[in-house]
């Protein structure tokens, strides 16, 4: 029998489970495997460990800020902590975790047996722990780790009080460069895989939206990351051999670094958030039992965001001596991003609207993430406007905004994804009760933690300070308690994942009755992914429609 009939009204929940995982048991995850599924989980687990490290830094920072005085840790330690918190959360949690998820899912979703370049893929992964070890090692060099914040602005980042060549900032720059090389290798791999390895019949407009999102995000990596690399190389030369690119004492211009930095680092936000949008687009139709509203427009909006992202960077530099006309131009381009983003939000709401909603943990996380994203987006439009930005520049208002994006949306979206695909990845079900406890702790914790930062910023509390005026104390106590709650919310997740992975109920191949090629294979998928490469004959997200998704196997077309 070669037809794989999928009646969309009644999707099969269970097929005989002949999945045998990827073979070698847990030891495989410590080896140089070239299987995209193993690499995906390697990325996910490694980045989660660093997420915990970054979280511990955050707990210390919020512990310091619970009182107005600087009394918990030494100033330089505090500076190192906030620098490392930002660096770890971006370069070792959000980027690699999403790359891990994409690694796991993209080949399955497009009907490929692996990524285009499996060995390159493995090499890119193994650079991540190297970056982590380098950054953590910088705590033990004289002078401690980098203290100039995650954006490493000169001339602050050019200070080297110890006089040693090997100092925290140099290590930081090397780590960022290695992470950049790893990301470029990944981007080349993803773009090639998506363009060249799709199953027959899967045209671009039959690709799942997560694949569209990854594709758009990786294009940003390819064309943005080199600019950061260029800036980092120049800063490293200023720091080590004494060139004068950004060093004012040698004729350099420190603002130039900001251009190099933000030309990549603002689009980098979309590198992170686009896959999360993709996750939302995968999850809402499944748990609302409805086709995704406006599939093509949502797909194209990802590309549009990628394109517009290249012309928004100066909105980080309204107060860096930027001429007025330039501020106006970048205010408008920044606001333009809200158009494709708004299209997506509208499409998700229209998808959920009138649907038969199941509030399983992935859906809860996706809905919570969407609500917090809408809030972050509104605040983002406020920040793009020049007068508001000048007022709240470098205050906690900005910190609150980007944490709503990076925790409220990105991390919540990651949790949604992990719960949703957990049965596929492990062959086991997670515990729904613990999942819901995790969600509510995280949702309440996030809002308690980051909402108070907005009034604090409007009142003028600066970011990155270790001590502050006593009138800011009230909101800071709320924020810190929220942070500790948020930190605690991670515990039920870890418990749930570990216990379920070891002894959870056996998962069927398609527990959510979802459409998508990844749900047609066993849980966990066999090494080769597909016994026969399927031929895709219809568009994705056809919940409630009756055409099949895949036709007879590929070989019989010949």
């Amino acid at each position: 029998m070669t037809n794989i009939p999928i009646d969309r009204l009644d999707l099969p929940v269970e097929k005989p489970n002949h999945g045998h995982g990827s073979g070698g048991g847990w030891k495989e995850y410590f080896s140089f495997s070239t299987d995209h599924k193993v690499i995906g989980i390697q990325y996910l687990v490694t980045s989660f460990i660093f997420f915990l490290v970054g979280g511990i830094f955050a707990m210390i920072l919020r512990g310091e800020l619970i009182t107005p005085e600087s009394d918990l840790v030494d100033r330089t330690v505090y500076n190192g902590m906030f620098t490392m918190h930002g660096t770890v959360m971006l370069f070792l949690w959000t980027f690699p975790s999403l790359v891990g998820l994409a690694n796991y899912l993209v080949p399955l979703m497009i009907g490929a047996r692996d990524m285009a370049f499996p060995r390159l893929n493995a090499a890119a992964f193994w650079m991540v722990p190297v970056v982590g070890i380098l950054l953590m090692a910088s705590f033990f060099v004289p002078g401690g780790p980098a203290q100039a914040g995650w954006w490493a602005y000169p001339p602050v980042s050019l200070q080297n009080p110890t006089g040693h060549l090997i100092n925290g900032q140099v290590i930081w720059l090397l780590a960022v460069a290695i992470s950049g090389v790893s990301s470029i290798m990944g981007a080349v791999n993803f773009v090639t895989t998506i363009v060249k390895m799709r199953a027959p019949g899967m045209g671009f407009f039959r690709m799942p939206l997560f694949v569209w999102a990854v594709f758009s995000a990786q294009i940003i990596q390819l064309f943005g990351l080199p600019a950061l690399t260029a800036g980092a190389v120049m800063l490293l030369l200023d720091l080590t051999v004494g060139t004068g690119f950004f060093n004012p004492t040698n004729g350099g211009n420190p603002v130039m670094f900001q251009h190099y930095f933000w030309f990549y680092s603002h689009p980098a936000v979309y590198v992170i958030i686009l896959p999360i949008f993709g996750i939302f687009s995968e999850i809402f139709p499944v748990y609302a039992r409805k086709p995704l509203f406006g599939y093509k427009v949502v797909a194209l909006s990802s590309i549009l965001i990628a394109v517009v992202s290249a012309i928004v960077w100066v909105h980080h530099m309204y107060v860096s001596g930027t001429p007025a006309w330039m501020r106006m131009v970048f205010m408008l381009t920044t606001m333009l991003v809200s158009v494709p983003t708004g299209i997506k939000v509208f499409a998700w709401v229209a998808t959920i609207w009138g649907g038969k909603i199941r509030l399983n943990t992935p859906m809860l996380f996706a809905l919570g993430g969407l609500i917090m994203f809408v809030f972050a987006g509104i605040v983002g439009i406020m920040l793009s406007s020049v007068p508001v930005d000048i007022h709240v520049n470098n205050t906690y208002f900005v910190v609150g905004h980007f944490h709503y994006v990076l925790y409220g949306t990105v991390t919540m979206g990651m949790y949604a994804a992990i719960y949703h695909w957990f049965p596929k990845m492990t062959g086991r079900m997670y515990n729904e009760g613990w999942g819901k406890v995790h969600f509510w702790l995280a949702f309440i914790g996030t809002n308690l933690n980051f909402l108070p930062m907005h009034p604090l910023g409007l009142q003028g509390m600066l970011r990155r300070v270790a001590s502050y005026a006593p009138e800011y104390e009230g909101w800071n106590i709320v924020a810190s308690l929220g942070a500790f709650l948020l930190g605690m919310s991670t515990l039920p997740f870890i418990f749930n994942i570990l216990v379920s992975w070891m002894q959870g109920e056996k998962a069927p191949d398609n527990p959510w009755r979802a459409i998508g090629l990844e749900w047609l294979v066993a849980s966990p998928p066999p090494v080769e992914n597909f016994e026969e490469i399927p031929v895709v004959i219809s568009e994705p997200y056809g919940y409630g429609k009756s055409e099949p998704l895949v036709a007879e196997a590929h070989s019989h077309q010949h």
Partner: protein
Amino acid sequence: MDSYIVPDDLQQSSHHAGGEHGHDEEGNKMFGFIVFLLSESVIFLSFFAGYIVYKLSTPNWLPPGISGLEVKEPAINTVVLVASSFVIYLAEVALKRHDLRMFRIFLTTTMVMGGYFLVGQAIEWSNLEFGFTSGTFGGMFYLLTGFHGLHVLTGIILQLIVLLRSFVPGNYDNGHFGVNATSLFWHFVDVIWIVLFIMLYIWQ
């Protein structure tokens, strides 16, 4: 027939509407390499953008005592490098005709021309009266020429590998990815140099 797995050779020839199923490894590699080169070119573009902004915004652009750069030797270097792009193209053509002897001759010639360029640049560096730390100009000049020189060196190493591989019988009987990629890389290095030459030496 559930257990029937499509043989790789069948898959290679399949191109269905819209989607391709690829075990066309040579094609994938070349596509990936082009994507990589596009990304690589953005690093150069970033440096170029920096150079232009610095030059336009710095009142005393050249270091004290320097009136300009000598153009003659770099111009000869440029001619040699551009010509070598044609020579490596001839090597590719020779390989397509399965003429390994001419392939090796042309490839070796390309390497010699690339080497000439590098030596020429080293001599120029040793004669210059300013250094890496001579303000923004000095930094930019050595950064740009040094980074490009590193690419020339990489290109020569790739050519050497491709040349040595041609002595293994059967290596280049059908797939030429290594050769094509090396050649494309060399053209890329060449085009970058032309832009650099105009920026550094002509636009003074």
